[in-house]
């Protein structure tokens, strides 16, 4: 009895000690307990890492669509600074994962890419992004020559990110359907004309248009066109949702549904329809897309098709407008807790000047102003000339656009949700237009006030 008791205690204590030692070894990497063999092993790896700086970069692009090649190129030429790419999925849970990684003290990323100002602003306000001005000076990176000072939004006069990608929004059209309808490819057009063309491109069971709800809805797009800078907010800092542009957007989108030029709002959401698959599988003849869809355009295996895709620029509020609703993205920042900020900046500076060329075939246009347009289009198109109307693509890419800028992000996610919810009610005939306009403004103002309190 006594003996077995002792034995049990011993086992219990042993079990506990293993757990405790396992914990401590993972947290500081140096354990004094344990066998000699493991200790010497750790020692050697530590010596080896003294010379090589290891950087972790987090981004949302799948490794095979460019980042893998970028990192391989860099690592081959810089044995002293080895970069490891970690992919996170750019959705709510993926961004939460990045946030928690940034908070943690172990395994935190040194470089991370935020997609859109809303995510970036949150991280910057939380003090996660290092101020880059000094680092930029040290590495001799020329922001003005490569990206343009105006294309980086500064906070308190300091730079906290550098954009790596210029996304260009455009309209993709099935060229055969366009020819069959006897229409010309539009080059300078308005949303009214878009809706009219959508009607003409609707044939039998193929819709003339597809715009992804609730992400890319016309009320939001027209608001951006009418007010590219901080489109969600008015001069008093309240919501701009009561504006005529929002109302016009709602009416135009409703018209697309009512005239059956577009699959109904709830069906497009519940079936999780995506613009590229709608176009390439022949469900819709015209979609609102952008350069980010390039890798699907080129994908013959998954989307076999017998028509070319033609490209038209963003429709505008009025003719002659040059606003593009996409813009600078892939916002690269350095973790303020990173121990190797200078090395991280060296990588970023290389990436922005030449490294991101490897991202072009995947559909990401570098922010580098000196990039050669012809070469860019060539890389962009690759071997897919039979699927793409190259001339119109070149045309759309070479326009000198005005891009939206977002400095404020008060309750941004909530405002987006409010706009799409109220639009949904109108689109599904659950609420008349005037009431929708009233509610969307009132709710948005309330959300802003609650947040800024």
């Amino acid at each position: 009895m006594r003996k077995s008791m002792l034995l049990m205690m011993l086992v219990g204590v042993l079990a506990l000690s293993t757990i405790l030692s396992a914990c401590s070894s993972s947290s500081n990497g140096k354990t004094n307990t344990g066998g000699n063999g493991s200790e010497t092993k750790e020692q050697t790896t530590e010596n080896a890492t003294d010379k090589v700086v290891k950087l972790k970069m987090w981004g949302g692009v799948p490794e095979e669509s460019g980042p893998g090649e970028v990192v391989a190129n860099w690592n081959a030429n810089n044995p002293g600074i080895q970069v490891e790419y970690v992919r996170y999925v750019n959705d709510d849970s993926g961004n939460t994962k990045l946030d928690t990684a940034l908070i943690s003290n172990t395994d935190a990323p040194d470089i991370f890419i935020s997609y859109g100002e809303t995510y970036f602003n949150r991280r910057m306000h939380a003090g996660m992004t290092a101020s880059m001005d000094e680092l930029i000076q040290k590495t001799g990176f020329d922001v003005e020559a490569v990206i343009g000072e105006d294309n980086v939004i500064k906070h308190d006069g300091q730079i906290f990110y550098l954009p790596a990608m210029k996304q260009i929004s455009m309209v993709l059209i099935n060229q055969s359907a366009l020819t069959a309808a006897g229409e010309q490819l539009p080059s300078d057009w308005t949303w009214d004309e878009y809706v009219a063309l959508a009607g003409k491109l609707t044939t039998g069971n193929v819709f003339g248009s597809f715009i992804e709800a609730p992400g890319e809805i016309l009320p939001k797009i027209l608001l951006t066109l009418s007010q590219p800078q901080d489109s969600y907010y008015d001069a008093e800092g309240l919501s701009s949702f009561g504006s005529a542009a929002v109302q016009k957007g709602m009416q135009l989108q409703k018209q697309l549904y009512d005239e059956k030029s577009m699959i109904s709002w709830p069906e497009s959401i519940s079936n999780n329809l995506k613009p590229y698959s709608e176009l390439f599988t022949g469900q819709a003849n015209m979609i609102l897309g952008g350069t980010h869809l390039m890798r699907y355009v080129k994908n013959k295996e998954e989307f076999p098709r017998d028509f070319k895709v033609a490209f038209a620029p963003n429709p505008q509020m009025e003719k002659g407008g040059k606003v593009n609703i996409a813009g600078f993205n892939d916002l690269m920042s350095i973790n303020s807790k990173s121990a190797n900020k200078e090395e991280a900046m060296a990588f970023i500076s290389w990436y922005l000047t030449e490294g991101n060329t490897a991202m072009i075939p995947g559909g990401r246009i570098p922010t580098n102003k000196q990039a050669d347009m012809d070469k860019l289009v060539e890389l962009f198109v690759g071997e897919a000339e039979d699927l793409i109307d190259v001339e119109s693509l070149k045309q759309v890419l070479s326009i000198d656009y005005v891009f939206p800028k977002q400095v404020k992000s008060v309750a941004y996610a909530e405002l987006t949700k409010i706009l799409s919810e109220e639009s949904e009610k109108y689109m599904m005939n659950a609420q008349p237009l005037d009431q929708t306009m009233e509610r969307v403004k009132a709710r948005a103002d309330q959300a802003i006030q609650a947040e800024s309190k």
Partner: protein
Amino acid sequence: MLNKATARLFREDMKENIAGYLFILPNLLGVFFFIVLPLLFSLYLVFMDWDYLKGFGGLTFAGLDNIIRMAKDEYLGRALINNAVFTAVTVPLAMVMGLMLAVVINRFVYLKNMLRTIFFLPYVSSLVAVSIVWSVLYNSRSGPINSFLRDIGIENPPGWLASPQWALIAIIILVAWTYIGYTLVLYMAGLQGIPKDLYEAASIDGANRTTQFFKITVPMLKPTSFLIAITLIISTFQVFAVINVMTQGGPLNSTMVMAYHIYLQAFQYYKMGYAATLSWLLFCMIFIVTLVQWRSQKKWQQHF
């Protein structure tokens, strides 16, 4: 002498207890750090606003703001109603279907185990995978369900997930379907525990099958039914994965439920404090429902 002996026994007891606690200590630590601590922390969050990106420095005192905000939350009411409807329909549906299937399958001599496995499969399958498959089935234009309905002559089949009137029903059908396996297995085990002589006696007295079912089977299965009702009510109140994959609360908020509302507040709007408050509201509701059930359980038991 006697005292000495009891004292020794007591000491032995103590030692044995300590040994026992040492054994469960690793698990206990896990429970403490990963369940008890977060639980207490979420209660603390009810009275705080938390910008979690700033770590613990992002905590600011909010007083009763989070609780007051619930009164102004127009989606809360909708979510609660949807939750109530969802649970009130799904649980009885899964129970009745499971019981009927159990009675039928129990009569089978062959294939019994195979059928039981087949019905149980959805319950152990990944809910996310199941939801994705069902959203294809529910596709209002080209989905198999609506194609079938059109084939048998229904001209305007329901829009299922695309229709505010049908979306919740569509989700109830799917979830009930996954739970049938669970209720079926428990009921089959329960049926095995009913003595055969009860049925024999009843048939000698001239009771037909239907009477036997309602007078013997159903009452004898009361403890099983009770267990199923409690576990299903608790889990249906927390329905989330299906909603997140299939409808995201839409269309027109017709499938907005508490768990999804909490998720939106926490991970889209980053209102951790308010999300914690809503979580505690949900907890209290489930707790009260379960408490009421326990009370009534005691009354039931007195019949036997």
